[in-house]
């Protein structure tokens, strides 16, 4: 991998992000409705109030100018404000840690559980344990997040009182159930994929050669098989990480977590342009950079991968 390649990749980020922002901006702009009038429900907002608020948010300007205003603000680090007057950047700052913690929790479960399931199933392939893991993972992948979330919440929160039901007031404990809700499905998905990957690599000639050299099986699986299976796994993990950081809308709603995903839903429902654009842009940025990171990581893992 050359430095030039890295620079080129970074430069490519710019048009992609501009395009993303433009698309999201257009979508929000095109959405019919009047976010300002909505502030007062069906009570008549005073015309002076109404016009003043619209002017404050450049809503009285044509689309292109609104877009340019937004880009101008963005360059200066200003993500705009919500129609209730709060800075989008401060909302993001406030909610980012919530989503980050949730993501890290879910991600940890995905990585640890997913890889354990994969390796165990692969090593014990075609045994009862393998079949059990396959059935379990299939179930975890298919069960809707809504259902899993509610069931976990009800069983461990309401019935057993082991863990908090909702909110983030109980610190780390608050994140356990939501992380499980997200992480179990991802772990199962990763587990299935990684299992076939690990199996495939276990049949590789170099693994047979390593065994033939008398290396302990545990080490062969743990070092050689795993590292060889890592490229597709890391790729999936990267996508999942970006997806999680985009905000797990449903999970955050179920568990009352004030994170990015919930803000986005609120933003969309209240037609809060700056908030929606800010959040989607953020998730696109995270996505693009996670992808880049994953590519770099893959090249480190497998020296055969090279970028021009």
């Amino acid at each position: 991998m050359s430095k030039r390649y890295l620079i080129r990749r970074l430069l490519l980020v710019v048009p992609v992000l501009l395009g993303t922002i433009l698309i999201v901006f257009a979508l929000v702009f095109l959405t019919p409705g009047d976010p300002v009038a909505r502030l007062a429900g069906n009570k008549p907002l005073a015309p002076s109030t109404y016009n003043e608020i619209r002017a404050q948010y450049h809503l009285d300007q044509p689309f292109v100018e609104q877009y340019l205003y937004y880009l101008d603000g963005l360059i200066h680090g200003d993500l705009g404000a919500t129609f209730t007057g709060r800075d989008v950047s401060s909302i993001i700052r406030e909610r980012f840690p919530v989503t980050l913690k949730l993501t890290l929790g879910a991600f940890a479960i995905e990585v640890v559980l997913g890889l354990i399931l994969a390796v165990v199933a692969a090593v014990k392939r075609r045994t009862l344990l393998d079949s059990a893991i396959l059935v379990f993972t299939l179930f975890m992948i298919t069960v809707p997040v809504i259902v899993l979330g509610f069931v976990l919440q009800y069983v461990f929160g309401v019935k057993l009182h082991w863990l908090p039901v909702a909110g983030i007031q109980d610190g780390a404990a608050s994140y356990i159930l939501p992380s499980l809700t997200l992480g179990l499905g991802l772990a199962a998905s990763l587990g299935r994929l990684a299992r076939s990957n690990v199996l495939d690599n276990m049949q590789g000639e170099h693994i047979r050669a390593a065994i033939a050299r008398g290396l302990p099986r545990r080490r062969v699986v743990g070092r050689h098989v795993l590292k060889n299976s890592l490229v597709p796994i890391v790729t999936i993990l990267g996508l999942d990480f970006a997806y999680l950081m985009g905000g797990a809308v449903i999970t955050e709603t179920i568990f009352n977590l004030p994170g990015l995903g919930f803000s986005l839903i609120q933003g969309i429902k209240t037609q809060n342009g700056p908030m929606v654009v800010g959040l989607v842009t953020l998730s696109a940025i995270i996505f693009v950079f996670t992808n880049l990171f994953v590519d770099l990581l893959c090249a480190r893992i497998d020296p055969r991968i090279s970028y021009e």
Partner: protein
Amino acid sequence: MSDPVLTVDDLHVEFRTEDGVVKAVDGVSYELGKGEILAVLGESGSGKTVHARAVLRILDMPPAYITGGRAMLGDVNLFDLDEADMREVRGARIAMLFQDPHTALDPVYTVGDQIIELLRLRRGISTREARAQALELLQWVGIPSPEGRLKAYPHQLSGGIAQRVMVAMAIALDPDVLLADEPTSSLDVTVQAQVLELLGSIVKRTEMSMVLITHNLAVAVGLADRIAVMYAGQLVELGPAKAVYGDPKHPYSAALLRSIPDIQRRDERLPAITGSPPNLLNAPDGCPFNPRCPYATDVCLTAMPPLEQVADDHLSACYHWDEVER
């Protein structure tokens, strides 16, 4: 012959699949003396590779199972060992050399990583010591500027160099027996000779014994003391290399010999063995070679010929061994 280093006795390996049971190795026996090179010759699917993997117990189970026989390393039947003891045998007593060095080397670790890992784990020495030994080994197998190669990834090496690395790893623990499974078939012709020469010199210098698995009769004749010919999982002929080459006693061996181009007879068309290798799922009754055999008679269709002594140290499994002509 002195006490054999490795004795393979009536080895049976089956593949159990949904399609049926395949007898991939069906009663193979031979003895390997100290410092001896035995070539196991056969087409792909003849069971020559499977038998070697069975000896080292590195078959994929399932679907492959060792269903009978013994593999005696000295006084020890390898098939009686538990997995931990067997691991001690691998590499240190019996090593294996693989066909394609690029697939047999782990692509995501450097050459150095892999050799040092082997030495550290099996010799119990420090990384620093292992590194020094690794350099020594690479030098020993004739790799120029070994320091640089240690840092190289397998895909950065040529086939010849990579196979030399594999040789280095195979002999790193001073094994008694080297199972070389088609060690040159993936290499360029010019390199093949070099690697074969290296193997020959190693056997000479270390008194190591070697089973050379190959489909190439010329390779076998050039290097081996004795040749064992396998067909459809069975040993059909076993004898001194010169004898098998000069006076084959099995029609299959004879057919193989005829298919080698001979400089003296360049005017003739090269005869191929007619017919195709048997489908082991439903092998023919009697001698498995009978559909392709020009000497086949009724008896060949009903009963498998036993492996009989036909000359000094020369065995053949053919009712018509005395009719066979080169």
